[in-house]
């Protein structure tokens, strides 16, 4: 049903594309090539390296050959993950393409979740500060307004601070958005003297 092949020459120069068939004979290489190619991605380099040291490319290819029925979801996941880790491409026949795409989406999601956990905790802290400040400021302003002669100058200062903290929270979110994009971050020329004092 699905075919594993090594990544083509432009990805792994010098290695010939070696198709490996698994599943019941329907998905020949030629047929596979005509069908959807799913490029596995979103697996961190560190994980790829750790797996590469314990499992060889041949191990995975052998596993693929030995497995007759890969309709078992767990097996498919494992094989897809291993293949992705080894830089293999997964070729599927058209009826499998949707399923494989879904598996890869799951994999990518798992990778994102593992990246997100520490990020989320730091994000929570970075947002808690301005959000807390905004809340306390607004409450203080409301309290001040209860007085018969409210200190308008102080209330004006409070509102200015609320705006500033709102922008600060917005910047945190903008930075977060830019992180997952490869070319999302802006490159700016740094004045190294100014940077030293930043």
């Amino acid at each position, binding site marked *: 049903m699905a075919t594993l092949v090594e990544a083509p020459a432009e990805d792994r120069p010098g290695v010939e594309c070696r198709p490996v068939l698994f599943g019941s004979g329907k998905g020949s290489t030629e047929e596979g090539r005509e069908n959807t190619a799913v490029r596995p991605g979103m697996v961190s380099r560190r994980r790829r390296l750790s797996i590469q040291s314990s499992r060889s490319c041949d191990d995975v290819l052998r596993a693929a050959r030995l497995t007759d029925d890969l309709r078992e979801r767990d097996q498919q996941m494992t094989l897809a993950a291993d293949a992705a880790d080894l830089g293999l491409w997964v070729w599927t026949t058209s009826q499998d393409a949707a399923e494989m795409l879904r598996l890869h989406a799951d994999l990518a999601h798992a990778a994102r979740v593992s990246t997100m956990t520490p990020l989320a905790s730091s994000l929570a802290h970075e947002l808690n500060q301005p959000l807390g400040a905004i809340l306390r400021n607004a409450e203080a302003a409301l309290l001040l307004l209860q007085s018969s002669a409210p200190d308008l100058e102080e209330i004006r200062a409070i509102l200015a601070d609320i705006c500033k903290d709102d922008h*600060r929270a917005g910047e945190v979110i903008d930075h977060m958005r830019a992180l997952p994009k490869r070319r999302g971050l802006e490159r700016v020329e740094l004045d190294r003297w100014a940077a030293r004092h930043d």
Partner: protein
Amino acid sequence: MTNGSSQPTVFVVDDDPSFRRAVSRLPRAAGHQVRVFSSGSAFVESLPAKGPGCVIADLQMPGLSGLDLQAALAGGDNPLPVPFLTGHGDIPTSVHAIRLGAEDFLTKRAPWEALLDAVNRALARDAREGAERTRVQEARGRFDALTGREREVLEHVLRGQLNKQIAADLGIHERTLRLHRTAITTKVGVQSVDELTQLWMEAFPKGQ
């Protein structure tokens, strides 16, 4: 709420400038006198040895952390109560802080009533404990006037010994001893041995 003459001060210690300013506004709007500090060490350095108040401190600060700050306060002359503010209050940290005598433990976005309640509770506790500290210090001060010999006599008296025994123990005449005893009651300002014992217990609640 206030104990004695001076108005209590609410100290706000937080390393984040805008959060610090925002938090300080709330007790100020509620009529408290407020002072702010950007770090635990800056606060500890300039803390007056006396004076009522409480400290709203951020638990997670670079340098001297909230718990360090509390420990430093507890070991000093003016152990002000500390309601803590925290971004995320996990259980081990809160248990640790409460064990060390933290007055309260609030998240940074706790309802403002809760924050002001915590401040008022802390100030009430400080007023109570401050009065107690003043009483102890005053009681101790009265014993400070005693000479070395009078102190020795006092220890024997507090043990409930009779004049004859004390005189023998210290190797002095009973009449001299009686003079010492009169000097003690006059200096300390009590009428009876009962009163003397009571004052001593107040000044030194647990032995010394």
